[in-house]
């Protein structure tokens, strides 16, 4: 009996829902299927919302445990901030005094901006690390193309731009070819995973 709920039912429900959604995309002229797709997507949104609530509780629990185990003091700050922001946003939802915009503009955007700025330094450090660690023609190619892309992005003079732009175009053409090959592989990989889930070869949702 347990197996029906933990294995058979999730697989059957996933298969049927997957096929209906797939058919609704393949046969958009059949209105019943399009209607069914909307219902299934709404159900998925509700389930995802519940998962988000559970996830938030899980996040608080994780940081509380990490603080108690003295793994990280940052976890206490994360915990405190998460609770305060949650309470403020819930109050804002009913009283509408603009706290949501304030939290995003004053807290989240600047912090993420700082991390973004830090990212450029880390990227430069990573490039230097690569040059020290792996001295191959591939590394030279990688670094030269990075420097040319950087210079052509903000050319120091018009003359430099005129000289470097054809080289940039060459790199762009090569990168575009590689990118298309990569995307083709990703699309096929996605197709293979989707196919395996649809036909219950892979069952990530059941035992």
């Amino acid at each position: 009996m347990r197996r029906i709920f933990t294995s058979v039912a999730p697989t059957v429900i996933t298969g049927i829902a997957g096929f209906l959604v797939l058919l609704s995309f393949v046969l958009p002229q059949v209105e019943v299927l399009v209607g069914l797709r909307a219902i299934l997507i709404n159900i998925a949104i509700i389930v995802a919302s519940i998962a988000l609530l559970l996830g938030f509780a899980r996040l608080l629990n994780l940081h509380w445990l990490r603080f108690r185990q003295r793994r990280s003091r940052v976890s206490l700050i994360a915990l405190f901030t998460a609770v305060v922001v949650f309470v403020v946003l819930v109050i804002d939802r009913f009283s509408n005094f603009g706290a949501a915009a304030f939290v995003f503009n004053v807290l989240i955007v600047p912090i993420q901006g700082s991390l973004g700025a830090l990212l450029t330094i880390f990227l430069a450090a990573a490039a230097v690390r690569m040059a020290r660690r792996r001295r191959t023609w591939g590394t030279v190619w990688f670094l030269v193309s990075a420097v040319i892309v950087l210079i052509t992005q903000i050319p120091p003079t018009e003359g430099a731009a005129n000289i470097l732009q054809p080289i940039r175009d060459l790199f762009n053409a090569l990168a575009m070819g590689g990118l298309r090959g990569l995307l083709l592989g990703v699309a096929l990989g996605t197709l293979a995973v989707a196919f395996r889930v649809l036909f219950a070869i892979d069952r990530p949702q059941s035992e």
Partner: protein
Amino acid sequence: MNDFIAAYAGLILLILFGALLSVFFATFSRFGRKRPHFRAIPAFGMLRGQMGRAIESGRDLHVSIGTGGISGDDTATTLAGLAVAEYLAEEAAASGIAPIVSTSDATSAIVAEDALRRPYVRQGNLGDFPRGAARLPALGPVPYAAATMDLLNHDPVLTNIMSGTFGAEAALIDQAANNNDLPQLFGAADPRALAVMATSTDHLLVGEEMYAAKAYLRAQLPHLASLRAADVVRIVIVILIVLAFVAGLLK
């Protein structure tokens, strides 16, 4: 004709893929002893025995399945990343130690917890399963990267494995891993993340290689057949692209 192809290309591809998968599955089943050969991907070799080394050293394996969920465009990528975590959990189940799996998506966290629990159920020692092995340290890609940096800096981690949906924020995690001299394995579908990580590790799973994790790590017939089918479909698409290019030149 062109309109028909544009409208039904996905369906044609799906039918072709399904037909090829069936053919290869039947062929591999019939000649069961003679398994098909695929090109070697060294990154998968690095995974073998990692859990044993983690248990011996008393340190953790950190597996990040990225920032994607299981209800959107990133579903397949997240599931592909999860295959790596599941493989390591299988290795660990007998010892009662599970890898630390982290993500920034609530739906992925639930599925990851279930994937880690499954090997314990199969081996009949669910009581040993360390609950909360799938962690959700932050919601959103950049906060997640910051939280993972904190984890790598403060927890005793042996190896950092990242396989799933990542963007350029992977560089933040990479920096923390490098500061702690951690070996890394990285798999992603996003060219930005791959470009960043190519500077740090030789163990890269580039695009399609990540989706082949189950076939390489478990070598079960349906997965091998799907991998071979994808290879054949790729060749067909490449031939069609070349033919279209030549036809365009001749026009």
